């Protein structure tokens, strides 16, 4: 056990996972879904949720087999120092990559939305300061902060959906079956990697009070996210029409710009987007923290805090690497999401090995 302390319950876990998944809704993610699903994008979201729930079950079982351990330690326990370290480092690397991509996308979003002339490095530095500080304060502080900020983020989301309700045209959800049931189901399964962030919970498994808390926070968080993303994609399709929505780089931002509450209160997207900052920061901080703790665990380091600064510098330089925004989008779609599926399979692999080698459970419980 590294020195991280803290006790996270199911509620905090749910909120953290949901916030870190839902932050994607503010980015290009709904446009991806509408692109593959057309008017039936919400069905894709539901299929994806179902398969993500299925694939999270072995992860939960693994956590239950090794209560009080993080993925890094479990990997060492199950497959030995060489392979275990490799597998869990891969997970951490994936988390870091997700952090880089997210931070760049968020920055691009803010540049388009609010600060067109500000250099992206400035925004990335500010975001990284927040993230590194949150990680430094520890997982407990991060979870509580997420809990405090959660209502604000949800309000920001609901405000947009509710005030744009008059613009929604249910007719745009037709033809009902989108590009056909087959493609919908296939896309749903392929995009299961959209929820691969759930593996971060497993990485931080040692911070959970009980393995049950981990399991329920993972399952409920993913399910909540699935329902929310179905609602959001349906709303976007209804408001923009599928072809227009699929072309938006930040559909939710465009949606925020559509909020028109009479002459006095209009053009409020900057304020709404400000609330998204919280969601984005919680997401990035959680993934970043998970990556740091994961690396510390799999390398057997006694503390994760010394890693924060080097990792932050790494993230900073990596996130500035892609030349333009479209490269970022392609990276996300073609690499992060597809490898996300593999990352989700690592816990399954570990579980199988653990069962075969009779590790964990009542035998190997610490």
């Amino acid at each position, binding site marked *: 056990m590294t020195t991280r302390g803290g006790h996270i319950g199911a509620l905090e876990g749910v909120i953290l996972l949901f916030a870190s998944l839902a932050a994607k809704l503010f980015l290009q993610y709904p446009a991806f879904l509408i692109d593959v699903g057309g008017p039936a994008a919400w069905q894709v979201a539901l299929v994806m949720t179902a398969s993500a729930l299925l694939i999270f079950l072995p992860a939960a079982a693994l956590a239950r087999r090794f209560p009080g351990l993080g993925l890094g330690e479990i990997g060492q326990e199950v497959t030995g120092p060489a392979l275990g370290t490799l597998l869990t480092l891969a997970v951490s690397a994936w988390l870091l990559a997700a952090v880089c991509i997210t931070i760049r996308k968020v920055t691009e979003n803010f540049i388009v939305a609010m600060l067109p002339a500000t250099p992206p490095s400035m925004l990335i530095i500010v975001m990284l300061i927040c993230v590194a500080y949150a990680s430094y304060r520890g997982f407990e502080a991060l979870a509580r902060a997420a809990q405090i900020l959660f209502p604000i983020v949800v309000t920001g989301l609901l405000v947009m959906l509710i005030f744009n309700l008059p613009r929604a045209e249910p007719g745009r959800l037709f033809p009902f079956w989108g590009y056909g049931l087959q493609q919908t189901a296939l896309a749903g399964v392929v995009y299961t990697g959209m929820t691969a962030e759930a593996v971060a919970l497993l990485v931080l498994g040692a911070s959970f009070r009980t393995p049950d808390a981990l399991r329920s926070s993972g399952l409920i968080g993913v399910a909540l996210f699935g329902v929310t993303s179905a609602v959001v994609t349906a709303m976007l399709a209804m408001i923009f029409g599928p072809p227009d929505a699929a072309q938006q780089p930040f559909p939710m931002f465009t949606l925020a710009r559509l909020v028109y509450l009479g002459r006095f209160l209009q053009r409020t997207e900057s304020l709404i987007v*400000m609330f998204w900052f919280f969601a984005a920061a919680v997401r990035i901080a959680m993934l970043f923290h998970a990556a740091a703790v994961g690396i510390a665990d799999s390398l057997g380091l006694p503390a994760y805090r010394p890693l924060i600064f080097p990792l932050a510098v790494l993230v900073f330089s990596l996130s500035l690497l892609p030349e333009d925004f479209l490269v970022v989008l392609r990276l996300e779609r073609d690499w992060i999401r597809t490898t996300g599926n593999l990352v989700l399979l690592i816990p399954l692999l570990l579980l199988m090995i653990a069962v075969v080698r009779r590790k964990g459970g009542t035998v190997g419980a610490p």
Partner: protein
Amino acid sequence: MQFWQWLKRSLDPSATFQNQAFSLGDRGSKPAAEERGSAWLKDAEMRTERVLTHIDSILQAASQGTEALAQAGDITPDLSVNRRRLEAMFRLPVNKDLILREVEIATQPPTRAVVCFMEGLVDRNVINRDILQPLMLLTHLAEEGEHGPTRFSLRLVVDRLLPGHQVSEKQTLKEVADSILSGDTVLLFDGERTAIAVETKQPPVRSVTEPKVEQTIQGPHDSFVEAFRMNVAMVRRRLKDPRVVTEILTVGQVSSTYVAVMYIDGVVNPKLVAEVKRRIQGIRVDTVTDVGVLAQYVEDAPSSLMPTSLTTERPDRTAAYLAEGHVAVFVDNSPHALIFPVTFWSLFQTAEDYYLRYPFGSFLRYTRLASVLTSLTVPALYIALVNYHREMIPTELMLFLAAARETVPMPSLVELLLMEISFELIREAATRIPNIIGPTIGLVASLILGQAAVEARIVSPLLILVVAITGLASFALPNVLASFAIRLLRFALLIAAAVLGFYGLAAGMLLLVVYLSGMRSVGVPYLAPVAPRMEGSQDTMMQPPAYTMEFRPRHVRPVDERRQADITRPWDPMNRAGTERNHDSPQEGGSP
């Protein structure tokens, strides 16, 4: 002649430092080396003498069994020696506070004694009537036994001659000195190794007055005073439970301040009491003058802007916190109690919230929250809106602002900082100005300055509004420390918003929230019971009705969690079914 001296002094370039001018010493010279040396030597001499005496008496007592050994002290039977040592301890010829009155006790044969007390701390009537009079004049009343003339003995004095209500025996001069300093009168007898201390305390104390800061319209109007004993009594009056415990610790090598730790045994978590006591006992400091100072030595995050302990001047509030399972700490000479642990939400609460019905209490708390958010963010929002997100301002207002800004030479941020700083100036000045002219000056400053600034086109009119609202809102928070914190944080957020607009503001708020989330007050998460969520009383911003708060707040982990029965209104027909079921459930806990 004099003129020439003056001229020389003023022309001589080397005369910047005058040799004849008084100085406590230069930076180069060792700090008061000689002065310290002589004082130390005298002290050491006296201490050595006392230690020798002590060793003597121990050697003497060694043969007489353990009881005598325990009573062996450094008081000698020689009264004059004792007297000399006391005088040395208290620097007597110079120091005029200690009174040493030598008397002769009218026993057969007469015994010499010294009455020692501190002028000003004692009740002179008690000394005259109850100490000097019986010893000097009324010894014959004790003669009525058939033993003949009264012979002096310590027992006689204690049992028959001193009508004082608290009499204790002291064996060492250190104890004697402590007693004298706390206001007792100490008697030293010729030929006795034991001194007698009689309780005669009457320290200068102000009477109980109305609270100054935490005023209420409804509810009690008494507040703590400087005597901690009275404060403890005020709380105890409200909690008539034998389990209410007051432990007294001493803090400070010079001040020897009494620090009282008060809690309800059987309600409070013993670990909490132990931790608070451990922290207080761990303090190594010369003086502790106030709870504010003590708090800085004891709190979890003393450099934090947000307080991690609660300072209150209200006995009723203290009692309520004790009943919930908190620990209260009193410091002698300080008219405040310190409550541990504390959560963020209690900064928004006042005693009055509970005396009013719950909707009013909740409304007031939300008003306070709104005012905190206002004073924290409005200047930052203004700058972010005007400089970055002008599209959010309604067009007409924006054009009006633009027109007003055209005549102002400075950037909005400078304009705002200027006004904020002058507001802080007015505020600080207004608290220092004597009471009578204070309001006038404040009015003049705020009205005239604002008007003049607009007229002179240094600031735009809307800005006055922003600063005024911000300033006003910062007064609404009942907790003084927290409102200071808000005043300072406001500037931090302002700068953040000036650099990156809403992005900077959001980053600032996020850092603030993360900081608060990671804070703890004596092991209790600062944002409990909201984050982390805990069961039990959810008395945070929304105040539950008094009759539904069945449990004590769980974040303080009380030993006894329930504070009232499930059915608190058994007479109510609405609850009849419940009454029968719950008929003989005992009414537990103290007053809410």
